[in-house]
């Protein structure tokens, strides 16, 4: 399977995606925010720096909002990582959240983490690991030890505790390899009681419907993964599929687009709107540009500042005072129990 970009699908173009969102019959997101006194949406405090290390990935998941895959060559340079390190050195950032693609495929991935730890031994470093990368090549087999050495928090997607649902979304054989990788992480202590090594899993729906209640599904996942595979983990994050990129293409192709948008609108939750992740996060693109969130990054909606649109021009004051750019895809983060890179926001 190829990326939408390699297939020259027009949905790979942000401007086309925005046009599709504009054409949706649902009301603008701004109106809903305005009705609860949240428009314009402002940041609370910048606590999380989410860094996209590149779009290269060993998997081609059907719902991927990054349109990542082996055919994507965009990766962050060491120079841009250096700019990120400057920001981390000079600001109170609690959490560095590394994502991709498969961030581990960036040749400077380990160097970057070592440099972050030299600056800050206390901050949380999250790696969004797709699990299969650990088994993809012998050079990645020691990743669990590397994560452990640097006290990395591992966050990994596992759409379900069965092969059928997982493989249908992430590719044939992904479930079995993911299970093996989880066992390898458990073996070095990840997800094990009292180890202090955090292993969180991510569920997202395998179609045009909303995620279940996080707590109930977590209990189900814990029981099934323990009973069937003797796997342990800390928390399960439920995440809503955002109608952009490959998931948008699926919605249109399957004629679910309008119904899904309507469902997101009908499920609008003001509490989730208060807690959207873009209020305490800045997302850094592989090329160093700054965005309100990973989804705005993929839609090429750069932060609304005059002097701080790139990591090399970071200006905390400008970023803290900016208005967050919203569009209809934002209904995905405010539906039901809410959705963020850390799971539900309103439970």
């Amino acid at each position: 399977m190829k990326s939408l970009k390699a297939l020259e699908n027009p949905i790979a173009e942000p401007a086309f995606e925005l046009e599709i969102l504009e054409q949706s019959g649902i009301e603008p997101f701004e109106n809903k925010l305005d009705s609860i006194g949240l428009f314009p949406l402002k940041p609370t405090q910048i606590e999380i720096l989410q860094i996209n290390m590149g779009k290269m990935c060993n998997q081609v998941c059907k719902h991927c909002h990054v349109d990542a895959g082996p055919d994507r060559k965009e990766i962050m340079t060491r120079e841009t990582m250096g700019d990120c390190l400057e920001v981390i050195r000079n600001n109170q950032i609690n959490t560095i959240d590394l994502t991709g693609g498969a961030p581990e495929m960036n040749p400077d991935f380990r160097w970057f983490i070592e440099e972050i730890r030299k600056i800050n031994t206390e901050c949380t470093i999250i790696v969004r690991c797709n699990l299969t990368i650990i088994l993809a090549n012998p050079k990645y087999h020691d990743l669990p030890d590397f994560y452990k050495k640097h006290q990395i928090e591992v966050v990994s997607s596992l759409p379900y505790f069965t092969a059928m649902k997982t493989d249908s979304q992430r590719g044939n054989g992904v479930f079995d390899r993911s299970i093996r990788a989880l066992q390898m992480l458990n073996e070095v202590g990840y997800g094990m009681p009292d180890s202090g090594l955090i292993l969180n899993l991510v569920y997202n729906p395998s179609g045009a419907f909303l995620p279940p209640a996080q707590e109930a599904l977590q209990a189900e996942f814990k029981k099934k993964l323990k009973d069937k595979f003797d796997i342990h983990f800390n928390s399960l994050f439920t995440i809503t599929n955002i109608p952009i990129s490959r998931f948008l293409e699926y919605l249109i192709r399957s004629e679910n687009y309008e119904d899904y948008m309507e469902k997101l609108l009908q499920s609008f939750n003001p509490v989730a709107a208060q807690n959207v992740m873009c209020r305490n996060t800045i997302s850094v693109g592989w090329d160093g540009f700054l965005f309100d969130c990973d989804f705005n990054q993929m839609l090429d909606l750069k932060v609304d500042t005059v002097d701080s649109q790139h990591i090399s021009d970071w200006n905390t004051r400008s970023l803290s005072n900016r208005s967050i750019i919203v569009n209809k895809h934002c209904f995905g983060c405010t539906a039901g129990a809410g959705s963020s890179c850390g799971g539900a926001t309103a439970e």
Partner: protein
Amino acid sequence: MKTYYNPEDLKKFGKIGDLQKPLADKFFDYYGEVFAEGALTAREKSLIALAVAHAIQCPYCIDAYTTDTLEKGCDEEQMMEAVHVAAAIRGGASLVHATQMMNKINEISM
């Protein structure tokens, strides 16, 4: 094409109150409470509803509770097992009447 069942009509369910509001309000309040977490989880109730939807062959209910069970975190295997429960009860309900047939056979046979 005109059909008796139109998927779009499911969205109009709430409109039954236009003709008789007090009873509709009572029904929807009751409905909401029935499906809330209780001694049974919302997930278990959703699977029961999916099975019943098949037993009574209500296309609206099948659409609604297929989505709902997925949104409660059920997978296809669990959902199909629920439908088999409905099928087993329906099949069993026919077959168990065979005892009545057998009684009658005995009654009127030499």
